């Protein structure tokens, strides 16, 4: 199975939400990373045929899904970032309804098993109107898996989940990724770190890089520093450098700084994290290239 995006672009009015995206995906988890407004949700909406691209093509196993959306609809499971449920139906009834419109025959056992996987078996008969945000999200995860999709696209799947459920979902993604393509879009970089075999980094509607987590980490090797400064000097460091994290301790404020050169004489090089590699990639993309002077 293969998902190919070729020159994909989507314009809303005069604004390009997505432009010139080329991407080829094979089974495994690809972590889709990018800041707010990078175009991640638009990309997923185009791939799932919810909206049509302005330019470019989406091919699923060689078939152009813009021309034949049903081919994608039969293969995809999609958990949108924002979605609603029908409050008057129970969780089980809602999933049965979705199974029916997706053409599943005899889905009863699978629905019960999925409700158990997302830890909602005890609430299966309760109406969705009384579900918390996290519980609705888990119903969303279950519905995305109803048809045993070859392509699973999940947009911010762990938002609203407690730490236990988040860990459980990470395990679920890992188990699912063995024989399908999973696209995981999130702001939570540790979720990607825990599950992704590939990373696609978007910013301002463009694909910055499609690589592996280890290669992305390698790109920032030797560029992450720990700086310990008094509280009063913290603002200066933050103004001059990209600061990935801040921790207050008795000896001062410990800052992890992403910088090409040693930010202060006392700074010590440390092992980079994926989050720092992500920050570095986005900041590099946003920093204007130096102007060349012609003599």
């Amino acid at each position, binding site marked *: 199975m293969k998902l190919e995006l070729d020159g994909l672009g989507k314009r809303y009015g005069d604004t390009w939400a997505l432009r010139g995206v080329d991407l080829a995906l094979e089974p495994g988890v690809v972590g889709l990373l990018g800041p707010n407004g990078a175009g991640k949700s638009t990309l997923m909406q185009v791939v799932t045929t*919810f909206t049509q691209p302005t330019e470019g093509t989406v091919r699923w196993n060689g078939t152009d899904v813009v021309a034949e959306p049903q081919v994608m609809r039969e293969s995809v499971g999609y958990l949108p970032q924002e979605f609603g449920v029908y409050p008057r139906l129970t969780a089980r009834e809602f999933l049965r309804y979705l199974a029916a*419109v997706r053409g599943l025959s005899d889905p009863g056992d*699978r629905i019960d098993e999925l409700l158990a996987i997302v830890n909602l078996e005890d609430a299966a008969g309760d109406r969705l109107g009384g579900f918390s945000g996290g519980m609705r999200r888990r119903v969303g995860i279950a519905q995305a898996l109803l048809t045993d999709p070859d392509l699973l696209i999940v947009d911010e799947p762990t938002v609203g989940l407690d730490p236990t459920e988040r860990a459980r979902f990470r*395990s679920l993604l890992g188990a699912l990724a063995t024989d399908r393509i999973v696209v995981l879009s999130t702001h939570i970089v540790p979720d990607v770190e825990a599950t992704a075999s590939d990373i696609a980094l978007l910013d301002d509607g463009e694909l910055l890089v499609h690589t592996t987590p280890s290669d992305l980490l390698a790109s920032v090797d030797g560029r992450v520093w720990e700086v310990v400064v008094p509280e009063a000097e913290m603002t200066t460091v933050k103004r001059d450098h990209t600061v990935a994290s801040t921790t207050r301790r008795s000896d001062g404020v410990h800052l992890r700084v992403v910088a090409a050169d040693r930010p202060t004489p006392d700074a010590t090089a440390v092992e980079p994290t994926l989050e720092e590699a992500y920050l570095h990639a986005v900041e590099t993309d946003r920093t204007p290239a130096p102007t060349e002077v012609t003599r």
Partner: protein
Amino acid sequence: MFRAALAVATADLRRRTRSPALIVAGLLTAYLGKLIVVDGQLVVAGGYTGVGTAAWYGATVCGLGTTVLLVAGFPLVRGGVTHDRETGVSVSLGTAPLSSGAYLLGKFLSALAALGVVTGVLAAATTAAFLLNGTGPFDPVGLWGPFLLLTGPAVAITAAAAVLTETVGPLRGTLGTAVYISGAFALVALGVQGSLPFDPTGLSVIQTSVSADVAAQFEAADPTGGFAYVPAGGEATTFRWSGIGWTLAQLSDRLATVGVAVGLLLGATVSFDRFDPDAGVDFPSVATAAESPTATAKSSDTTTVDEAVSRLSGAETSGFGLVTATAAELRMALRRRRLWYLAVGAVVVGSSVAPVGPTRSALVPVGVLSTLPVLSVLGTRERREHTATLLFTTASPVRLLVPTYLSGVVVVGLVFAPAGGRLALLGETGAALGLVGATLALPAAALAVGVWTARPRLFETVFLLAWYLGPVNGVVPLDFVAARPETVAAGTPLAYVVATPVLLAVAALGRR
């Protein structure tokens, strides 16, 4: 307070101006003005029409326009509070240091301004018509005064009622629209008859003034002859009307109308719950224990996930599950409608035992009203409940219309079944066909409107107006339940049957 109210009003008005509804309403209103003074004429006192002066143009258009805006302006401006509730802005507003009074005043001012825009368009269209076709000097007071003093207070009632119905739980939906529109019709009729201490539309002000001038100029005139809007060019004796000579009593009447609007707004501040889902005026809750308070689910360990995934049952597909999907649509439509079941039960039992004549002319027209809450949401649910992304990415959006349509057919069919069965057994095939036509066409019409507008209000308004004019008052093309024999003779039921596939095609087009 006024500063805050103005901020709320400005934001809400911006939202309204970014929707095509206001533009469409303005265009329709301008066309209405043309119909009244260019394509038609007002005949009073049994055969007299005014010379086309500025005052005559203003009063003629204003009289009918005010009535239309009082009734049909409601669905146009309703929804300001609901919009905040649905978009989640309510959480910020409910916790902000903004008084309920200022918030509701802002919503009222926004609704009033929107209706003011439409009134302004009507006045502008009337002005253009006068400049092109009128007689005599341009008289701004005579031309525009009626819009300011008659239409203005009337639409203030509409705006205040729109806010009030959004703050009273049971009136937030279809019931609120039905209550308002029937109440508005009653207000217009009673006001003109003088049965109320005030006249909401001010039609009686025009009527009194015009009748007095006709009587003064023509002894044979019948001052009780009433008003009639007829096509232009008909035979009528012209008279010169001097315009409304505003008296203190007439101005007091308009002030009383504004007072009613203020009263409605004060009522809204009392019933407004500041978006607290557990407060405000509402029918007794029938929520299950699982719905309130929030249901909970226990947590379990994460070690079994791999195993559970490996043991998952297969997902065999075998085509669209039409029966299951239709059953789910019916569940969504009919759950938590205890009063609905009582009303439909009464109609079904009544239609089964009452004489056929009253069943057809009274029970069926009344019974069809019970289908409105179910029909008006057809085609809107996916957008209103934000399930479109779940549904339309994994199933054909057009195919999803089928169970939605069928659920509407089942509900309407259930209401009509006893009456239809009895009519068919008695050989009244035309009347029975009328009910079949309604059963097929009403859900199709609701679906077409719902898919295109994503809101139930337009269908509710059109349905109620058509119901009032057709089944109740015998306007044959709108008698969609064939309550009268002449409807069957005119072939109206067949027209509704034929319209069904067209309406379904319109719905499908909207879903593509």
